[in-house]
């Protein structure tokens, strides 16, 4: 019986084994290509709008990665982003102080997570259906609350609240700094925290986790609540940046997030993946969109190209996994 030999020890091995290295490389190449095609790509204006646009997605993708790693899925993230901002907007408009309204927006998001998590974890309902229902319920609530129109709070919100989404520290947008920092902290926690390790155990083999004494139901409930909370935070950031609520914010966001996770190496079967990878997935997709806009590619082509990129990532991953499996069976 032969065992697979591990690669050599050392710094080089660590870097090469670092799964995200491929993605970082692709992103760097893409940046170089875009720079060469359109020098305007590296203009302060473009970089600023590019990073601000993708910043809130970095927060949402943490949650999506979490729920997929746990072996589930959450299709309601986009709707929860919208609901969180809508609740806060309506309450603030009706006289509540913004801090309290903001907390209420987050609480409503958490409730959405409890709904998903409770039904998935304690009643074993399929997460796809549960979160799809939540997606519709939350979106519906947005329309009900806003009566289907945009509600503008421009020039009404206090300055500190607007600073979150629109402020600058030096030349760097505060929002981008916050989101990147959140993502990096999450990445470290995903790798190192014993509680998040439980999520990997549950996602890798839920029954084995139960047979190891892990209360899988509590873990899953916590996962869905956290995902919804992160979407809620993204909703607050959106409000702070634009000062208005509109019921169709985040439409289709869940699909972009799932695609980013997939590109970032999160296993759709659960148990495997990193926040860093998922964040790089978000960056890659944003770069491609940005590049197409700068190069005046027809809007009609953009969705098409995104689909091709996604399926290429999936096929590459599939080939990688199958090669590894073939290698193993040869050795056995």
């Amino acid at each position, binding site marked *: *019986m032969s*065992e*697979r*030999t*591990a690669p050599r020890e050392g710094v080089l091995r660590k870097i090469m084994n670092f799964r995200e290295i491929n993605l970082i490389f692709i992103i760097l190449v893409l940046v170089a290509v875009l720079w060469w095609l359109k020098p305007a790509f590296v203009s302060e204006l473009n970089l600023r709008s590019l990073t601000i646009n993708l910043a809130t997605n970095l927060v949402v993708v943490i949650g999506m990665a979490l729920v997929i790693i746990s072996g589930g899925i959450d299709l309601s993230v986009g709707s929860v982003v919208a609901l969180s901002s809508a609740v806060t907007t309506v309450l603030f408009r009706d006289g509540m102080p913004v801090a309290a309204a903001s907390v209420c927006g987050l609480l409503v998001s958490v409730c959405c997570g409890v709904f998903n998590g409770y039904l998935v974890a304690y009643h074993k309902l399929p997460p796809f259906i549960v979160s799809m229902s939540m997606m519709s319920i939350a979106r519906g609530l947005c329309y009900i609350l806003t009566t289907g129109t945009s509600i503008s709070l421009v020039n009404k919100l206090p300055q500190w609240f607007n600073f979150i989404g629109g402020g600058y520290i030096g030349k760097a947008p505060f929002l981008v700094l916050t989101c990147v920092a959140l993502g990096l902290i999450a990445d470290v926690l995903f790798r*190192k*925290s*014993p509680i998040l*390790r*439980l999520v*990997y*155990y549950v996602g*890798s*083999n839920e*029954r*084995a*986790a*139960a*047979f*190891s*004494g*892990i*209360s899988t139901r509590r873990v899953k409930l916590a996962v869905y609540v956290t995902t919804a909370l992160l979407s809620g935070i993204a909703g607050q950031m959106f409000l702070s940046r634009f000062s208005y609520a509109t019921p169709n914010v985040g439409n289709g966001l869940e699909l972009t997030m799932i695609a980013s996770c997939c590109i970032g190496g999160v*296993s759709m079967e659960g*148990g*495997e993946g990193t926040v860093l990878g998922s964040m790089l997935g978000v960056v890659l997709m944003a770069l491609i969109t940005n590049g197409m806009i700068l190069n005046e590619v027809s809007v009609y082509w953009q969705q098409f190209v995104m689909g091709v990129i996604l399926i290429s990532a999936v096929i590459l991953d599939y080939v990688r996994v199958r090669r590894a499996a073939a290698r*193993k069976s040869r050795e*056995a």
Partner: protein
Amino acid sequence: MDEFVLRMEHIGKTFPGTRALDNVSIELRRGEVLALVGENGAGKSTLMNVLGGTESPDSGRIFIDGAEMGRYGTTEARDAGIGFVHQELSSCLHMTVAENIFMGRLHLYKTALGFTDYARINGEAEKYLTTFSSKARPAQKMRELKIADQQVVEIIKSISINCKILIFDEPTSSLTEKEAEHLFDTINRLKSQDIGIIYISHRMEEVFRLSDRIAVLRDGKLVETLKTSDTDANGVVSRMVGRSISEFYPPKSREFGPDILEVEGLSSRNLFQDVSFKLRKGEILGFSGLVGAGRTEVACGLCGLLEADSRSIKLDGRGIVIRNYSDAIKRGIVYLTEDRKALGLFLKLQVKKNITSTNLKGVTNGFFISGEAEIRTAAEYAKKLNIKLSSVEQRADSLSGGNQQKIMVAKWLYTAPRIFILDEPTRGIDVGAKSEIHNMLRELCDAGTGIIIVSSELPEIVGMCDRVIVMRENRVMGEVAGGGIAEETIMKLATAV
């Protein structure tokens, strides 16, 4: 025409690490019931899988109706007239009885417009159901039927494709006594239609009631084919177990300490009733019995992995309550599962993450898991248990069965258990690893940990245990200790001869 409807000659099959079938030859006459008996792992299933075409033999020949079979797979087996009634039924529960009977042949029954002719298949199904005096209706959904009726549908399905040989694998395991009677009538009717029947069962009573001849398998070899009228249950059982203990087991205990675990009246609704036992310090306690006797359920019930009630559970003389598995683990009562792949390991995760999964606190420093501590701990256990790996950062599924088993043992040892329950601790692993695990268990026991072994392998039970509780059909049938522990005594209790 050949006297035999089936002849299997010199069948051999080797799996990595085990010789599953070694030169086995059986034959079957028309209208005869041949019982196939043997301990768990004796090779019955493999032999029947070969016959069914799901497993291809390494050597040997198969003759059906005197004709030698060439290329042989599931399709060829079915076309040659081999039918299976599985222990776990393989019906499509959401489809009708008639659709199940004619599964795969619906395209042969078409109306002029090319749609399925339900009137015709329902009519034909009706005829069969009447012949077998079944109360099921052709248009009924399978899920509405009781297991016994589903079984009849399975039998009809085989008959309707003109099967000549019908294999029953533990068919009565989920039937009531009355339903079993009905099945025996059905089998006798099939006999009279000249169908050859192979009947696999652990229940001696049935074997003697139904069969004309009995083929006894042991360790992948055919021991003997006996005429049922020439032998009795004792004769069969002694042939099933009569094996020399070739493996080396560590010496048993001579001295026992006080009771460390006392379980009184443990019951779980339909799974097992009123199980009481004690475990003394320095003693290895065995749970023996046939597969499905309820041993695993008792172990899971004790640990809170299954819902169970008890009059009392005392650990070191103090009463404890176990509501769920984490309660049990906190008290130091841990359970190593028999199903390594589905329940035991995180196959896709690294070895180190598997080992630390039961006790993350042990490698956590402040808020974070210390990568260095995790590697150190895993390496320490790998060394202690002699797990062969090149790095603790390998994935668990890159290791062999024996080493995977040791990882499971390691993950529980890492919790420093007070009572260690092992379900099939050496299933499907090579002799070397087996012996290492056995020695390690005896050392643990001598150091004061309570060890309970649940095993279907009689030599393991006899070789390792100081006392053995034998279960049959969800009840404790008896207890043997010390010099009384012998394969025959245990087998008799387990099969109620």
